[in-house]
């Protein structure tokens, strides 16, 4: 079947979900998967090219805090606040990214720089206690009645579900656009061999900056959406190193190189977190982190393509490996 038809059908089926009288809890899980699926997709648009960021919490934090602070302090609608936050995040990505890419800080070193970026943003939020509430977090000021389009607040969970669905689908669309663009060629080439890429005219620095800023901007939207949904943010849950690492874990588990991989990763991590919560409650502090870490190691060793990647590879094998046959060695 045509993939486009399949996509439309899939999204239509999802859109119909709230009509089936789903309880609040299940709707909540779905919204959570959509928001995080979008955030993970945003990370993977650059992560798939070997640009592993351990600091995407920085962009989530900017999204959540800038939008909330503008709303709480000045009553500025998130519809304006979000673009402002996006511009801020992209500027941050540019300032940190440019020297990295210009001077070829790649691989582990790039990951370390981003790790620092995430911490800088978290510590800034904690430090600006009077404005941000510090470690105690910050509550988004609710509108009377609970629903206001201008405030991007919806008392009705189903409404928020549709909003999250649209944003998530847009994220997948962006992923697809990048996948089909010449930018992908430039980035695949750059991630493999910067000298060879430059020798055929690829502007490595520019290509990397473009994708980093795109990813940062998208992640910012995710952060804002999360804040609007939870109505409460906290530097640890939105900007901490834990959340930055969870993004990486989820994408690797779900599949770094497939369109739906990050979303599957969101389902997987949520399922894991909920199971742990229901089974152990909050008795064993740090258990989830330990299990994430352990699973991450196992995934990297045994399933480097993640859940979706492994399923896709399995399907190809069963169909008699059409991808392996073409182009006999050309000597």
């Amino acid at each position: 079947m045509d993939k486009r038809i399949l996509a439309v059908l899939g999204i239509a089926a999802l859109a119909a979900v709230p009509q089936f009288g789903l309880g609040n809890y299940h709707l909540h899980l779905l919204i959570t998967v959509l928001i995080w699926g979008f955030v993970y997709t945003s990370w993977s648009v650059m992560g798939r090219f070997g640009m592993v960021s351990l600091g995407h919490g920085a962009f989530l934090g900017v999204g959540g805090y800038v939008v909330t602070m503008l709303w709480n302090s000045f009553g500025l609608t998130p519809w304006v606040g979000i673009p402002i936050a996006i511009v801020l995040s992209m500027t941050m990505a540019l300032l940190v990214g440019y020297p990295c890419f210009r001077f070829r800080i790649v691989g582990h070193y790039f990951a370390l720089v981003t790790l620092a970026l995430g911490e800088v943003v978290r510590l800034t939020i904690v430090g600006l206690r009077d404005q941000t509430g510090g470690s105690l977090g910050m509550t988004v000021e609710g509108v009377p009645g609970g629903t206001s389009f201008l405030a991007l607040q919806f008392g009705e969970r189903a409404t928020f579900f549709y909003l999250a669905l649209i944003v998530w689908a847009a994220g997948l669309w962006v992923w697809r656009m990048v996948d089909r663009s010449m930018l992908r060629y430039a980035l695949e080439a750059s991630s493999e061999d910067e000298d060879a890429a430059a020798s055929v005219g690829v502007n490595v620095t520019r290509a990397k900056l473009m994708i980093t800023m795109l990813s940062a901007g998208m992640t910012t939207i995710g952060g804002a959406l999360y804040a609007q949904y939870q109505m409460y943010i906290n530097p640890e849950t939105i900007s901490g190193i834990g959340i930055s690492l969870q993004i990486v874990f989820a994408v690797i588990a779900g599949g770094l190189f497939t369109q739906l991989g990050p979303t599957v990763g969101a389902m997987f991590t949520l399922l894991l977190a909920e199971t742990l919560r229901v089974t152990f409650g909050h008795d064993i502090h740090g258990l989830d982190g330990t299990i994430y870490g352990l699973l991450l190691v196992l995934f990297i060793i045994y399933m480097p393509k993640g859940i979706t990647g492994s399923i896709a590879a399995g399907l190809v094998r069963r169909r008699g490996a059409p991808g392996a046959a073409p182009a006999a060695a050309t000597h």
Partner: protein
Amino acid sequence: MLKVQDLTKRFGGFVAVDRVSFSLEQGEILGLIGPNGSGKSTTFNMIAGMLKPSAGTIMLEGREIGGLAPIEICHRGIGRTFQIPRPFRQLTILENVVTAAFFGQRGHVSRTKAHDHAEEALALVGLPTDPQAEVASLGAAGLKKLELARAIATQPKLLLADESLGGLDETEMNQAADMLDHIRREKNITIIWVEHIMGVLMRVVDRAIVLDHGEKIFEGLPREVAKDPKVIEIYLGTEKITFQEGVAT
């Protein structure tokens, strides 16, 4: 079209290339040869933008290009291959060459056009234009061809071919030499061909330059190279070099 004047590269106190001068006519193939450590790769890398010259000038069609970054060199119309093939393995063979065709023109061509240029380049070197064909399916000779196809797809005026014969057997070497000759004729590209073995190369080059210890010790017609006493000495000690069986040092 290319004029190299007193090109010099010093690494600290060591002079890798010492006041080397030569020039190239449109459509010519120049063989740049010399034993290992003779400075030919350093010369190559200075023209390709990988190294900044310590002194001297490199003029392409009357404009100085010495010290420009590799991407600029590409955009000025110089394509290059790598001695050890450096393909983009995440991309298919066709995508490798499309990348070069598109970005080699600064992205100012349509994708369809880039696609056409890529297919043309692949056909020229005899690689499959099948969009599914993977880089992993290529052997040593195939990877060398991919290097050439990628460089040609950028639509260069000047092609720098770095040791295109390394790692090939004799039949493949002859094919590679014929291919460069064919490319020159088809596309009217000027070629500098760097090699440390002489034999096969001498069949197709119009002129040869021999470097030794960073200095130009010979420039002339290929049939004269093998007779030059200085060249014979650096390559074979005192024995006479035979034309067809030119030997690797």
